[in-house]
């Protein structure tokens, strides 16, 4: 991984390059980025992939990918974390919701590059081993899904909804869970699940 210390030049992050090349998954980080003269803001050859380190579910994951890769595609196509789903790829459905830091975001409109250095939490990182997170258990108890495709996004969104303090009333839950479309329309059960899990999550 490129060394981030002391590599800034004229106010730029050192990693300035041209995007556009296809990347290969899970390639070990090698010379290119490291060998780049970090002090030069010269844009790089557009054919080259970029080296990115994403911190996902508490682990650093090194990638060499096309710079255009979104967090969603990085997770799904390059890290084998397919729990986050692509439903629209334009921020219109919420199926790709993950936490970056403590905030829920749509990973389809987040470049992997701009998520570098941030803590990404996906559905795969929610349970503690085989013990389900209270929200996961609540979704089971309340039958808060049918086909299950939107479910990882719903659950990530629901966890954030509670932590934001937006689970105080059913009306609040409905409004603050409206960024996640469920075509099977399990909505009333999703509200019930958020209500069920909220006290336990708030207790920590």
């Amino acid at each position, binding site marked *: 991984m490129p060394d981030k210390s002391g590599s800034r030049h004229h106010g730029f992050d050192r990693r300035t390059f041209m995007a556009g*090349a*296809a*990347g*290969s998954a899970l390639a070990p980080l090698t010379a290119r980025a490291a060998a780049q003269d970090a002090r030069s803001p010269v844009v790089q050859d*557009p*054919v080259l992939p970029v080296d990115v380190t994403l911190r996902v579910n508490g682990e650093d994951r090194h990638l060499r990918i*096309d710079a*255009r*890769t979104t967090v969603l*595609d990085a997770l*799904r*196509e390059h890290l084998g*974390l*397919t*729990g*986050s*789903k*692509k*439903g629209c*790829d*334009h921020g*219109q*459905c919420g199926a790709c919701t993950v936490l970056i830091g403590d905030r829920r975001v749509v990973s389809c409109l987040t470049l992997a590059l701009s998520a570098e250095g941030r803590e990404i939490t996906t*559905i*795969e990182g*929610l*349970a503690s081993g085989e013990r*389900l997170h209270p929200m*996961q258990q609540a*979704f*089971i*108890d*309340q*039958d808060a*899904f*049918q*086909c*299950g*495709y*939107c*479910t*990882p996004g719903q*659950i990530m969104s629901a966890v954030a909804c509670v932590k934001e303090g937006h689970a105080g009333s059913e009306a609040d839950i*409905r*409004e603050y869970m*409206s*960024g*996640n*479309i*469920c*075509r*099977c*329309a*399990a*909505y*009333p*059960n*999703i*509200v*019930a699940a958020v209500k069920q899990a909220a006290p336990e999550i708030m207790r920590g």
Partner: protein
Amino acid sequence: MTTAAPEPKGNMGQPVPRYDAVAKVTGRATYASDTPLANPAYAFLVTSAIAKGRIDGFDLADARRVRGVIEIFTHENAPKLKESKLFSNGGYASTTIQPLKSADIAHDGQIIAVVVADSYEAAREAAYRVKVNYAAAMPAATFDSPGATAAAAKGQNGQFKEDPRVGDFARAFDEAEVKLTAAYETPTQHHNPMELFATSCAWTGDDLVIYEPSQYVHGLKNGVAGQLGIDADKVRVVNPYVGGAFGSKGSMTPRTAIIAGIARRLNRPVKLVPTRDQGFTIATYRAETRHEIQLGASRDGRLLALRHEGMEVSSRPDPYCVGGTKTTTRLYACANVDSLVSIVRADRNTPGFMRSPPEVPYLFALESAMDELAVKLAMDPIELRRINDTANEPIDGKPYTSRSLMACFDAGARAFGWSQRSPAPGSMSDGDWLVGYGCAATCYPTQMAPAAARVRLQRDGRTRVEIAGHEIGNGAYTVIAQAAAERLGVPLEKVTVHIGDSDLPPAPVAGGSNSTASTCSAVMMVCDKVRQRLFRALLPNEGLADRAKETVGIGQTPATQAARSGQPLDRDKAFEALGADVVEDYGEWKPDGAPLDSFHAMHQGQMRMVGGDKMKGAIAYAFGAEFVEVRVNRFTHEIRAPRLVGAFAAGRIMNPRTARSQLMGGLIWGMSSALLESTEIDARTARYVNDNFADYLVPVNADVTDVKVIMLPEQDHRINPAGVKGLGELANVGTNAAVCNALYHATGQRIRKLPARLENIEI
């Protein structure tokens, strides 16, 4: 018991949590595009920007220059594919329009090129860099468009055999004391399942594996094999989970064989994840419809004359239609009935089935008209239905195997508080909101098709069930596991279920709400074969073997089975007597009335669905009554539907938890259909305009406040061994009319064209 897991009543099964629940809440459930492939190439579709005409030529130079591009396939170099007949015409295909075959363009968004690259990002960029020169012709978009042609459905659609009629409609209508003639319209709608229409194809030698969300793996396997010209045994379709379907994944779309052919050509796995907007044109949709209903009644509300004329849009080459008059002409007692269904051909992709294909548009018309008639008669709309309730359908006089329509109305009315309704339009309000109550009947045919299953029981109770069913959110895993556990008397947690794989024994399409009835009937039959072998081993000289067979029947609990067979099976002793630790059996089940070639067809991925109005000597439908409270803001005219109540009777409910969820989702679907959903078509270009989730509106969480589902116990011994009618498509039918009937009650304004939007409200 909780709201999510209602107490089972009567013959219902237990509301156990979903078999696949943990997989789905942990992200471990593997949908088609989640399947890892070794060194995949990524495909991106280029789709047509015109609806009619020809491709004069491509300029691919710019696209080819994108680094990582492997190949660009157009009609000039795409792998050649064989044609496939339409699904509803004895084939497998959703459309006979085969892209990449010639320079011809038959509809907007037709696949005209496939870019394959080393990365998704490169494929997408190159696809946008493909330049196309079109020779465009003027397309016909829809009804009334110049160039659209209409003709009767009968004679052109193999599945639409007859326009139902009986008696003398013209005279009866003429003589009726009270008459209603009204026209209704429903819009184009797209299923928009959350999961995109992904396809991955990987070859190993001559063997192909397809990862694709499918409601019919055996159909897809045979269809793709046919198009590729290879033996069907060489093709395997795998999809353990389908991210929603609603009909859109029931028949083979052209993309699958195209991707398979490209993967073979490149000798590399190819992964396609089309965009949401491409899904609007590379798969099917619910076509727009028009209706004219004529009702004649006596002053006391008896229907004397009923005529339903329907018109539906289809593509140029394919005579697709849903033809819902088979249901609407049979729902109520009426001696004089006439009907006609026509198909209007336009330059569009071929429509297909979408959740309750015939019933949604046709019952919207009829159940709206019934409400209008009730108003003319100054009669409560529930009473009008009660007066015209019937035990026999009026066209052929066949009895309904069971019909709990009025019991549903009564239960629903109680739960909804219908008695609180003041009948005069505009007479109820709450602050800024005008309040309206409306109701409508709902129904859906009970359908079944042949299915096969393999069941293996081990001495320790571990049970493995194999059947190529489909988990589309319907709870297939769960109810199949329950059926086996119940039938074999083993604990549910000992049962593993394997579905969603065409290497498994064939099951029919997960469509037409036949899935639970068909798969559970087959699984139960094979479980009984297993039990029979154990009985025979244990008591070779007694008649129990036959008695075990006898118990193939109607939603038996283990307790009743044991009683009938004299004693419960002592599994351990039986295995001891058998001298084995495992019993495995395979069986093929077909419903009564299924044609002779049923099993042969089943293995060809073609199903012979029976039931509904096509039964011999009877007619089988599930029924329900749906109630909606709408609110119309007196200032802004915003329309909301905060309260939905449905009461349903659908034979045996295998699992009240999954059933309730499906019915609840159906109620919301109906509300959505009535108030939000409409695919807008640019009339000049015959192109879909709002082809995304921001503009094609479906409800969000905040649109849904209070939904109540009531399931009435119902025993029906005539339909199938499982006693199951199916309910996946029952709840989203009546809601359409119920919403508009409620809007009339709130505002005095009759909405006859869906969706009902605020600009249609004048108060």
